[in-house]
């Protein structure tokens, strides 16, 4: 085999006549399409520039639709949330091996209503279950405050504590006393971050959330 054989062999490969014609035709068609596309695009943009009213109308129309849709979605969300409220959820407590060692109920802000009144040597906290027929609140026989803080008008912590005494739950209500050594100053705010619900034979369940209320005298 000689290199010249290679040259002659490769040079024998010729493009067939019909293929050549086809390529020429396709190239022409392709360039014509390109030119037509450019022409069409320039025409459309020119029309858009002259007839701004149509474009404007279309824009406004679609904006109106968007606003209406957004309003409808917001309304649905507000109605849904206000009807059902934001509900809490159970969360497992795991140890370092990943084994579940207990549980807590999180985000219960909307499921307990709290009010507080200051007495001479204590603060009386009234906790009302919004859904007393639902778990976990229907199981609770007694309730205590897990963690709380008392803030003065400037936001300074006057008192903080954990685990008050247990109070019985009756009809979804519980009145829990926070002992005080001296009367609470005026304008104080009570912030509770957890309740602990207990029932016979069950492990106490911590119900977490944030409840704020101004003390009434």
């Amino acid at each position, binding site marked *: *085999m000689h290199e010249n054989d290679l040259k002659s062999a490769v040079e*024998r*490969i010729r493009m067939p006549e019909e293929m050549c014609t*086809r390529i020429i035709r396709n*190239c022409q068609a392709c*360039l*014509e399409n*390109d030119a*037509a596309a450019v022409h069409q695009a320039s025409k459309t943009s020119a029309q858009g520039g002259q007839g701004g009213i149509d474009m404007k109308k279309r824009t406004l129309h679609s904006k109106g639709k968007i606003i209406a849709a957004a309003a409808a979605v917001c309304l649905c969300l507000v109605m849904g949330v206000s009807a059902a409220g934001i509900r809490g959820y159970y969360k497992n407590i795991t140890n370092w091996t990943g084994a579940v060692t207990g549980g807590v109920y999180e985000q219960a802000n909307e499921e307990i209503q709290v009010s507080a009144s200051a007495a001479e040597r204590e603060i009386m906290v009234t906790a009302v279950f919004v859904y007393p027929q639902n778990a976990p609140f229907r199981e609770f026989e007694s309730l205590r405050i897990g963690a709380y803080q008392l803030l003065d008008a400037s936001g300074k912590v006057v008192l903080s504590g954990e685990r008050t005494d247990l109070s019985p739950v009756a009809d979804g209500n519980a009145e829990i006393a926070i002992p005080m050594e001296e009367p609470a100053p005026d304008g104080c705010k009570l912030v509770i971050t957890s309740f602990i619900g207990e029932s016979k034979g069950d492990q106490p369940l911590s119900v977490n959330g944030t409840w704020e209320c101004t003390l009434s005298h």
Partner: protein
Amino acid sequence: MPNTSAQTAENIRETVLSYGSMLYRLCFVMLGNGADAEDAVQETFIRYFRKSPVFADTDHEKAWLITTARNLCRDMIRFRARHPQVSLEDLQEAAPSPPDTCILEALMSLPEKFRIVLILYYVEEYPIDQIARMLHRSSSAVKMRLQKGRLMLREKYRKEYM
């Protein structure tokens, strides 16, 4: 709708007739398939007419076409590797004489990097430094590929066709 001018049509015809066969040969050897070679050639010309590059001379123009065609062939080869096809077109269709077909078959069985160097050197008769510029490789790399490709081609031809 605007029409392509007669001058442009004539220009297309002239360019395709001048370089069509050369590009077809290159693409056919690279791809081993007439239909794919036609697609590659057509795409090369379309790119050429769309971009309308400015060339210093006809050699520059030819080198641009070869480089573009080679890149397209490489893309097609990569595509084929990812999407295997059922069969290749028979070589006899493009190369009628049996001994030539054997050389072509041997050539086409070589890896792509050797094939392109052999074609550009022996068929298109480009000097090594120009091939190096076209392939973005050093002259010594091109020389090595040429030498190795030649050996491989000879070996293949001797083993399978003699």
